[in-house]
């Protein structure tokens, strides 16, 4: 069969088009011209003024999308991204503030501390499933709330910047920051996340463990029969996932405004955008990168859409969710009906 025709009839294409179309209906409903609005999304996110902001957003969205895609590849859903992200950010902030080492080493240590904090916390959720029989979906989500509360408490009381009215820590010492490209807000963090994506691609395609993960995702009973030890795999996948979420938190703290501000890491909803991207891509490595870019464009472009057409930017969040609703319902353009099972 023709590959292009096949791609056109895939549920992904259908979902994205349906999302864009329903978004256009919403725009018409609020009295805006859909072409102007979508034009503003594109020019605002990909134009000279917006591309820096888009790439900064891509750093966070792709980081979390990878974090959630890696367990998803084995059929596991980590809903605790927010907690792991925040703990990673907090660990990086504490390391950055209190390490008496040269700045570059401190940065490295802060990144590692962030990854370790996220990994440890996510591993806890895996242990809940393995040893207590609490489904991962639920344990990871429930653990997320106390983590956010803890970080919020630390930023408001013991670590609060004296004299500040905001719930934030002190600014990190001079030089304890990720190098930025030129005068933009894009930092080396983008490269770290890109490296993670490349590693994921290689692992998924070329290694035995990547094969085991995919097998478990396709048919966990078969994989178990073939000798994949499920508990250990869950633990390792969740630790990796949490490490990536923690890394994103650390990158966030080591970039402008160089401190931990309560709510700043979670407010933009990167975790949910990342999960949406991972689901849309079916956790495939390259697809996850593309989907993250698509959603980052929407998120950043939503702001300029709001400026030009006065349509609230929350519309882009609606659009994102609609795409996933259609995708989950496995709707697609007709004529592929007989092959439904083969494409899952």
């Amino acid at each position, binding site marked *: 069969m023709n590959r292009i025709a096949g791609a056109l009839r895939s549920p992904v294409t259908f979902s994205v088009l349906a999302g864009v179309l329903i978004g256009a209906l*919403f725009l018409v409903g*609020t009295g805006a011209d859909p072409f102007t609005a979508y034009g503003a999304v594109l020019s605002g996110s990909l134009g000279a003024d917006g591309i820096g902001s888009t790439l900064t957003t891509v750093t966070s969205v792709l980081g979390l999308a990878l974090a959630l895609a890696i367990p998803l590849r084995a059929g596991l*859903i980590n*809903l605790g991204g927010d907690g792991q992200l925040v703990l990673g950010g907090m660990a990086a902030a504490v390391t950055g503030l209190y390490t008496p080492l040269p700045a570059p080493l401190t940065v490295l240590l802060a990144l590692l501390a962030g990854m370790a904090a996220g990994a440890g916390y996510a591993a806890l959720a895996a242990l*809940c499933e393995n*040893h*207590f*029989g*609490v*489904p991962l*979906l*639920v*344990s990871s*989500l*429930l*653990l997320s*709330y*106390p983590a956010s*509360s*803890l970080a*919020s*408490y630390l930023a*408001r*009381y013991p670590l609060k910047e004296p004299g500040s009215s905001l719930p934030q820590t002190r600014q990190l010492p001079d030089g304890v920051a990720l190098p930025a490209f030129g005068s933009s807000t894009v930092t080396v963090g983008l490269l770290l996340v890109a490296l993670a994506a490349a590693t994921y691609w290689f692992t998924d395609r070329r290694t035995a463990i990547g094969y085991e993960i995919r097998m478990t995702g396709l048919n*966990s*009973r078969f994989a*178990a*029969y073939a000798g994949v030890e*499920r508990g250990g795999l869950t633990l390792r996948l969740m630790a990796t996932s949490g490490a990536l979420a923690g890394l994103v938190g650390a990158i966030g703290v080591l970039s402008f405004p160089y401190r931990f501000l309560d709510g700043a890491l979670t407010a933009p909803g990167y975790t*949910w955008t990342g*999960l*949406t991207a991972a*689901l849309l891509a079916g956790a495939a490595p390259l697809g996850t990168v593309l989907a993250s870019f698509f959603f980052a464009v929407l998120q950043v472009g939503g702001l300029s859409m709001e400026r030009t057409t006065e349509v*609230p930017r*929350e*519309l882009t*969040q*609606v*659009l*994102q*969710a*609609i795409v*996933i*609703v259609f*995708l*989950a*319902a*496995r*709707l697609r353009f007709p004529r592929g009906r007989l092959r439904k099972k083969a494409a899952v």
Partner: protein
Amino acid sequence: MFFDSDLLMSALRALTPILLAALGGALCERAGVFNIGLEGMMLMGCFTAVTTSWFTGSPWLGVLAAALAAAAYSLILAVGAVTLRGDAVVLGIAMNLLAVGLTSFLLRTVFGVQGTFDDPSLAGLPLVGGFSPLAYLAWAAVAVATLVLSRHVWGLRLRGVGEAPQAAATLGVSPAKYQYAAVLVSGVLCGLAGAQLALGNVTLFSENMTAGRGWIAVVAVMLGRALPLGVLLAALLFGLAEAAGFRLQGLGLPQQATDAAPYVVTLGALFLTTARRRRRTTPAGAVS
């Protein structure tokens, strides 16, 4: 004294939304549909209740509209998971996200405010004997659900559909029909839960105001093994944790500690019950 009747009263007030949503979740679970979209359905209920009460001046119409809107919203899950055989987990997550986006979007387009809509002239539900009328409804719903599930032919068929859909179909019971009914009823109950939250517990709408209560309800279904009475006990546990949290906050504990309390308590309870159940039932080395 720490444990007194006031604490119990505030626990009973905190538990109503969770109980309503969890009952809906339990029905779905019994019918074999894993419903984790409770949070989103509740949020749609909150928004519809506040909007309708604001424009008509009647909180009762708000309650009715919330139930209808959330039921309509639950059709996404019914059509997606039952008719189209999509993944219920992904659908539920998407429904929760869609509800957050949609209500925030509508909050800005309808009321022109961001974050919270709150007006002194917004009519909330009256109290009857110290409780919201919906609280009595929730308790009655527990009794009705218990009776229907254990005694009535509808409940028995619903359980049959959940346990062995093919066997039920062979006996001429349409699984799809019962699953649709369960999902729609859960929508109605979540709509009522949302109305209770936005017009009973407080009288306002704020973005993402359900704040994880729908997820607590999902856990309550697991804790209560999808039995209406079990769900009631699980919801009571959560209500007590929330009420005790408020009490501790009054005694000087930071708000963050009390915010986290319900989640920690629920997780702890989940550990205890599932660990015991597993020791009893699962043989060592069982697959999946």
